[in-house]
């Protein structure tokens, strides 16, 4: 019940914000005054009506996981985000070993197999991509300068990064 209502409220606010943004779409002589706005406004309208339905006729509550699983999933999102920004400055092997090991640990909490999985996956995939598939330019390893490393990490910090 509550989950659907909260989700409906979030989508309703998003839909209204989207509609507001749609009215502000810039147009020019080539596009005509209303054509670039028409389709976004239709979508926003349908989304707002559907959100209202969700608010007033919610489905039964789904089985949400326990608090511990939420923490694990939060860690997973964080690890994957850090992995995403570090892939460019650090290259493939080192970040992959850490990210894969932590993910593996979140799925099955055994430290030793998780570490082996991390290192094994990192090296195995490196060999696969570099030598079997010829994608060496994508999985190359790099040694970054501290400034570049900070540049990458700062992307994830609100209002600091670019």
């Amino acid at each position: 019940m509550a989950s659907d209502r909260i989700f409906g409220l979030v989508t309703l606010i998003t839909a209204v914000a989207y509609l507001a943004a749609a009215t502000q779409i810039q147009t020019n002589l080539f596009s005509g005054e209303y054509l670039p706005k028409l389709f976004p406004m239709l979508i926003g309208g349908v989304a707002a009506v559907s959100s209202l339905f969700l608010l007033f006729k919610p489905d039964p509550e789904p089985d949400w996981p326990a608090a511990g699983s939420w923490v694990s999933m939060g860690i997973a999102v964080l690890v994957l985000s850090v992995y995403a920004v570090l892939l460019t400055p650090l290259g493939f092997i080192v970040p992959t070993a850490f990210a894969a090991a932590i993910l593996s640990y979140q799925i099955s909490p055994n430290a030793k197999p998780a570490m082996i999985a991390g290192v094994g996956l990192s090296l195995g995939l490196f060999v696969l991509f570099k030598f079997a598939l010829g994608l060496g330019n994508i999985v190359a390893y790099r040694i970054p300068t501290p400034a570049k490393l900070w540049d990458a990490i700062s992307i994830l910090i609100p209002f600091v990064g670019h």
Partner: protein
Amino acid sequence: MDILSNLALGFGVALSPFTLFLAVCGCFLGTIIGALPGLGPSNGVAILIPITFTLGLDATSALVLMTSVYYGAMYGGRISSILLNIPGDEPALMTTLDGYPMAKQGRAGDALVLSGVASFVGAFLATIGLMLLAPSLARVAFLFGPAEYFALYLLAFCTLGGMASNNQAKAALAACIGLGIATIGVDSSSGLPRLTGGNLHLYDGVDFLVAIVGLFAIAEVFFFIESHGKGSSIGVKLDKVRVPWADIWETKWTMLRSSGVGFVAGILPGAGASLGSFMAYMTEKSIAGEKGGFGTGVPKGVAAPEAGNNAAAGGALVPMLTLGVPGSGTTAVLLALLMTLNITPGPTLFTDRPEVVWGLIASLLIANIVLLLMNVPMVKVFVKILMVPAWILLPGVTMISFVGIYSLSGSYFDLLMMVGFGALGYILRKLDIPTVPVILGILLGGNMEDALRRAMTLSDGDAMYLFSSPIAIGLWIAAIAGFVAPMFLRNILKKPQAVTD
């Protein structure tokens, strides 16, 4: 004998040693992808698209490889359904109903081989149906103008939402999320950015591959974290595998009927393979009656959904190729593949690039035969691969997804967006909001908007133009019916629940 000469053209394209090698690789890879719990045809193909793209294969080779993976995954899905009682994807759910009980009776090998043969019959007949039907449908599609196309896209969203979801509002919301994301980026007619929030990374729009891999593959990781990788160990032992000729002979009519039912269900836009396997199973169940013993592990209960499911997969290619409107999640991913290869599906595809269409059809036939030959003797190898524990498999899949998406643009922004889509996919699926309309919205949003704009420009802004031809009116009626009817049919067509231990 137009078809035969076209088919000869197709085989001429698809039968070189290199493409045959790709077909074998694709079938093997696809069967593994389908067999692994948590990986189905949609996410398997989605992860592999960016990698194929980076490998620099030409259009035909890439198409052969990916269709083999697609068909292979449809085949492989039955392995985890029968042995683990875990359907790899939604259409495979019906196979668990009789497949798992049959495996528990010690007939796991028989069930696997029988379902392999049924898959072959379904897919083979559907490919022939595709060959006969698609060219004539492509001729009808020439009559479609912008108003008709707009109505057709609407029909796809309505039926997909109506069939696939338990709540129409949620399905509509999912489609809106996808369409809304599709409108982000530089506008096609004015050349000005819209709805980007000033973010330079969004000027290009959101790549559908980022969304597909995020919603399908990354979201799966969160489900495994939630369940801590439980339920992925083999529950049933598989001993000697031999060919159960008697069962195959006994189910011959079941396979033929189910293929027909599945093919028709697959053609309906938005319905796809889930409806195909469901209808095939239900039809056979009512023909067999009470004595048939459906649900207790009878061979017919294994053959019917597998033939129906694979026939529907072939049938779903008909609207995808002729109209550019995919019928299911997996065909949506295949449409993404065609768009990545710069091939625009639609009626002109058959006249402009016959070598692509007929090469695709020929490669489907080849993939089918390779799969049958591979699956019966090698089923034990695939069962071994199922033993890979989730804590190695899922991190591996994630890392491959990252490399694939990173290879598209080399931008961290796409990767962060993919993680975001993964989290969104988890929340949506938890709330029982279908994710396929989101994908379809991102894929088709641009075309749908173009159709609307052209219609509005032609009619000088008169909305009634959208209802100006009989075809358009028919499509609108079908769309509304497809959206509304399932609300009333839901009580009658109750889906059977999976068997529990």
